């Protein structure tokens, strides 16, 4: 399964890649995007089975990206795990209402990500 990681921090993208390698999820190619705009471009040209996305990003934030993705029939069931510093109940609820499959607050442990991924597959 190919995976798309969307975060404006290259450090977080590296850490999430490392966690994916440790998790018991069969990962193929990992694509990286700096923001929602880049992520949408990638989604239109590649087929991925999982998206991990931040919320606070330049150009297009994670919530707008989520809304845009869910508006397309082909991506309605694509698992999207939000990974963000935004930790209020209101923000988590907003993400879920917009179609997030799961939510992990930063800072995160590898086990927290693995647990959420296990719940998605």
């Amino acid at each position: 399964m190919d995976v798309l990681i969307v975060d404006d921090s290259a450090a977080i993208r590296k850490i999430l890649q490392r966690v994916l390698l440790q998790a018991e999820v069969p990962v193929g190619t990992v694509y990286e995007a700096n923001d929602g705009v880049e992520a949408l471009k990638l989604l239109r040209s590649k087929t991925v089975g999982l998206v991990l996305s931040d919320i606070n990003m330049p150009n297009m934030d994670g919530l707008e990206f989520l809304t845009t993705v869910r508006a397309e029939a082909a991506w309605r069931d694509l698992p999207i795990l939000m990974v963000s510093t935004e930790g209020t109940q209101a923000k988590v609820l907003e993400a879920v209402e917009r179609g997030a499959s799961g939510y992990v607050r930063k800072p995160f442990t590898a086990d927290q990500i693995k647990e959420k991924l296990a719940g998605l597959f």
Partner: protein
Amino acid sequence: MSNETEATTVTSADLSEAIKTATDEVFSTMLSLKLKPGEVYVEKEEKVPASGVVSLIGLAGPWVGTGSVSCTAQFACRIAGQMLMTEYPAICEDVLDAVAEITNMIIGNVKTTLENRLGGMGLSTPTVIYGRNFQTRSARNQEWTVVPFEWDGDQMCVQVCIAPNPDNGKKEVRPGFPIPHMLNI
């Protein structure tokens, strides 16, 4: 949650507690490290020009302010090394990005704590500056609550200034706004 900012106050003790808790959580979770907090102090502006890495994030909503993490180049390289499991002998893109993300997580968690009392706030993306002989000051002459942390004799400071937004309700504020902070480089 209340929007009546006049009736709500945030003390330096509130800010320092939120900073200590957030910093401890970020460093213990992402870097497997326990940092020792030093004596908290309040300042209006840095007394002497600084050198090293400064990472700034703006907060906006019913209250507005800035959060920052500052440290030496050596400290920044150690943060990145611990976070990415790679050795960094000098400042590079990876190091600046790691410091920016650490700042994002610390100030983001401080924001979450404050939002319970102050209402929802937006968080800008971090701006990182690396250099020598620069000085920071707040354009609004606010007081900064500064919490120094030690790691094997090296120091990092996490600081926040925040005040009621005089423009609250007049216009929509979004993340990505200009940071209300001045730099002399």
